[in-house]
């Protein structure tokens, strides 16, 4: 057993172990927060180590570990990472660290449970991104729900009861459909190992997975849980929900739904493309009409999920590369924006745009952060979002030019809603809810958001870091359509239609 093979397991166990430690450590609340912050930074450190040891030219599964869990149904602890999973894990580590430290900075009540849940949640998310066994994947997928339920329900706003109820109803329905699909799929093939499961052409199984992922993403018309959950959560939990959890759904499409059911995915691509287009346009319009800052960010995530799904179902190299890049971009952008929304709400005790305004004057750091993040999120040229969205549009253009038109309209709408929100918060007359004494961003808050923004700036300088290194040696399409299994001696491409 080398260090490499343990690295993925370590990435899962560090936050989980940290959660246990926080839950039982006999320390006062403030120290629990610092312990959790330390764990989340250690996690980032391990991710950097993993990225350093990763062979980006190699398309096969790396840093993998395999151990039997129960043998009679062929279920195992099998974890490992592809290049694109590595980026998603990195994004998770960074965003979760920012959110955990933000929670520490604002001094959440009942810190023991709060920080234990945050760490447990990060471990579960990393588990989802790295699990290579369907049942293990499902276990992590479900495990994410437990901390989220409590994080929203205990630390949420006044409407939290309703928010948790809708959130749970949607998620449980989706995940149990997926469980049924997993049971049938895995038992039929006598293995649950994603690296060994053959491709299938069953529409029912495909839909079982896709609905679960579409709820998580979310995609129109499965987004009913989104408004309550994002508005009622504490801001850092909204950041996690929109930044990271939504990527779990998109990752599921990329890792399971498309590679394992390529021909069905191909047949159903128009349905998915239409739903993605509706999500994009409808989400953008809702964001434009949203009365509060969080509303804008939240509906923009619905729109962005739509855009990423457009990229995934473009079924070509550009689309897949762009989708992975855009997942990371949007995670960083929306996490930063939700945290900024939280900071604004702390100062004005409201997020309503009509009560806000004029916050730029005398608050240069806040203005700079909001403006930079907002500009990146609306995909201004030279930003990393521009690179991601451009790749997606170029990819989906090859399907049909009409999809690219939809995408372009979405990008125009993004400029409209984002500039409206920025202007309503920072510029115009000083809002009635903005006190003169409202402080600029404090050092602690800056330390949380600045790394996210710096990551975005760095990616803007070199988006190819992700888009060019997401699928090993390139050829994303052929890798995804051959099932992302890469047996030894893998030679290449089997055209669509000839697979089972």
């Amino acid at each position: 057993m080398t260090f490499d093979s343990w690295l993925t397991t370590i990435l899962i166990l560090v936050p989980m172990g940290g959660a246990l430690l926080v839950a039982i450590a006999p320390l006062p609340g403030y120290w629990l927060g610092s312990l959790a912050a330390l764990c989340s930074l250690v996690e980032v450190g391990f991710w950097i180590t993993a990225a350093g040891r990763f062979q980006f030219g190699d398309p096969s599964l790396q840093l993998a570990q395999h151990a039997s869990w129960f043998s009679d149904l062929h279920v195992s602890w099998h974890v490992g990472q592809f290049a694109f999973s590595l980026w998603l894990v990195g994004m998770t580590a960074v965003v979760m660290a920012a959110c955990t430290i933000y929670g520490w900075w604002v001094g959440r009540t009942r810190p023991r449970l709060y920080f234990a849940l945050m760490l447990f949640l990060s471990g579960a998310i990393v588990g989802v991104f790295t699990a290579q066994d369907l049942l293990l994947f499902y276990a992590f997928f479900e495990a994410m729900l437990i901390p989220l339920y409590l994080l929203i329900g205990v630390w949420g706003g006044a409407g939290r009861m309703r928010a948790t109820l809708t959130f749970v109803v949607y998620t449980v329905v989706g995940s149990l459909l997926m469980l049924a699909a997993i049971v049938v799929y895995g038992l039929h093939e006598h293995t649950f190992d994603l690296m060994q499961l053959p491709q299938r052409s069953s529409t029912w199984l495909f839909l079982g997975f896709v609905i679960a992922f579409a709820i998580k993403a979310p995609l129109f018309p499965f987004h009913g849980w989104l408004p309550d959950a994002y508005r009622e959560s504490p801001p850092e939990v909204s950041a996690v929900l929109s930044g990271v959890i939504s990527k779990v759904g998109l990752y599921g499409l990329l890792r399971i739904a498309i590679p394992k059911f390529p021909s069905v995915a191909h047949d159903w691509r128009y349905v998915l493309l239409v739903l993605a287009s509706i999500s994009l346009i409808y989400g953008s319009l809702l964001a434009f009409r949203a009365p509060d800052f969080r509303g804008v960010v939240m509906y923009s995530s619905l729109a962005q999920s739509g855009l990423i799904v457009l990229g995934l179902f473009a079924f070509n190299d550009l689309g897949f590369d762009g989708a992975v890049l855009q997942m990371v971009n949007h995670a960083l952008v929306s996490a930063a924006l939700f945290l900024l929304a939280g900071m604004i709400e702390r100062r004005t005790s409201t997020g309503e745009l009509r009560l806000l305004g004029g916050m730029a004057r005398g608050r240069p750091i806040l203005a700079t952060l909001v403006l930079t993040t907002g500009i990146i999120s609306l995909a201004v040229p030279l930003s990393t979002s521009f690179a991601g969205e451009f790749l997606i549009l170029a990819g989906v253009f090859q399907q049909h030019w009409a999809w690219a038109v939809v995408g372009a309209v979405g990008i125009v709408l993004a400029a409209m809603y984002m500039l409206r929100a920025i202007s309503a918060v920072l510029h115009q007359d000083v809002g009635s809810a903005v006190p003169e004494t409202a402080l600029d961003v404090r050092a602690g808050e800056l330390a949380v958001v600045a790394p996210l923004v710096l990551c975005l700036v760095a990616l803007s300088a070199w988006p190819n870091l992700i888009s060019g290194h997401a699928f090993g040696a390139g050829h994303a399409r052929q890798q995804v359509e051959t099932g992302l299994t890469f047996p030894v001696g893998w030679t290449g491409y089997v055209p669509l239609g000839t697979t089972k």
Partner: protein
Amino acid sequence: MISTPHVDWFALSAPLALLAASGLLLMVAVFVPRRGRTAAAAFTGFAGFVTAFVFAIVLAVKSPHAQTLIHDTMFRDRWAALAQVLIAGSGAVAVLLSVGERWSEEHMAEYYALLTAAGAGMTFFVEASSLLTLFLGLEWFSIGLYVLTAIDIDLIGSLEAGLKYLVVGAVGSATLLFGSALVYGRTGQLSFDRIGAAGHGHDAMLVVGLAMIIAGLAFKSSAAPFHMWTPDAYQGAPTPVTSFMASATKIAALVVTYRVLSTAFPHDQSLWRWTIAGIACASLAWGNIGALVQRNVKRILAYSSISHAGFMLIAVAAANQLGARALQYYLIPYAAMSLGAFAVVAARERELGVPVTLSNLAGFGWERPFLGVAMWTFMLGFLGFPLTGGFIGKFYVFAAAYDHGFWWLIVVGVVATMVSAYYYLGIVRAMYFRERADLTLAPSGGSPPRELVLSAGVGICLVVTVGSFFAVQPLIDAAKAAAHVLPL
């Protein structure tokens, strides 16, 4: 001179150990001075169950080959021994939960005597290999439970619950007895193997007998539509008794159901398979829908136990090796979760002095963090969430159903699980999301009693619930060895 058969006393060691404990407890009731009587009684009861637990494990290890004893009236095999391990373990935890009970201090020794006697009956019942011993075992533990349900006469509803359980239970026993008589009348045999050998399919009298036996056993496993007594009896009985009924009775009834059906009625397999599948669906539907509207936590858990009977009956309906394995595995986390959940209810009950409802659970999770987290784990386990054995249990049950081609049972199970999320998470919500301010009923003052013994019991349940998620392989190996005994 009647020739006595050779008796393998070791095979009967678990019931005998519990009977011995029961006898000792009756002496404790008389001879030990009042001051130390409660402690001595609890210790004796606990020791009895632990002894039976150890004996059952040794029996499981030393019985690699199934055999019948005493003129084919008892089985000595791993299927029974594993069930005995679970029953004795449940009993031991139930004793830990009973220690802090305040009621009728002078009758505590008799209470434990009844508990161990009922446990002895159950461990005897699971070894039964003929209709005669089957009925004997059933009545043996049932009578103990009737009295236990009504033992706290000061508790409102306890007598009513006891009477209801007695009447309905007696109907169940009578049904089982009548069914046995029909089967005996048709085949002329009492032992399961010989009934299986003598019977043949589509024999009206045999089928009626089979139906009545299924009904009689379903009364005990509280599967719908034979569940009517369950909510009232669970609610009215003292909570430790409820916990014992919810775990041990269900273990015994389901394990025996699987054995009787597969051994004695192989010819009518497709018939009882569909019947059990129907009962499973009814239980899942009724249990979950019934639980949705309840406010009393014990009643919610009672309906939840009905729905879990449904889940485990899916494994029976599958009637294959995987199903038998699934049942034996599922019972392990299920027993732990039931005991643990009722233990937490008992703790809250003692603190408040009134029945526990969703509204007076408010703030419980913050006041007593360990019990709160434990209760939360048990609820997620019932719901079948990962990091608890409930997840693997449901997965195995679905796998068994799929293996037989009953894929529609998976659909029913999945829908039932969706519905159940509402009330299981409702309990978590009641404990954590509401503040103490919402609590209209204040505890009588001072910090809540510490109840170390009860917490230890909850700790054991927690370890089993979570541990069975990680240690699937050894548990499944044990369940597999047990399942091989059945002719499936």
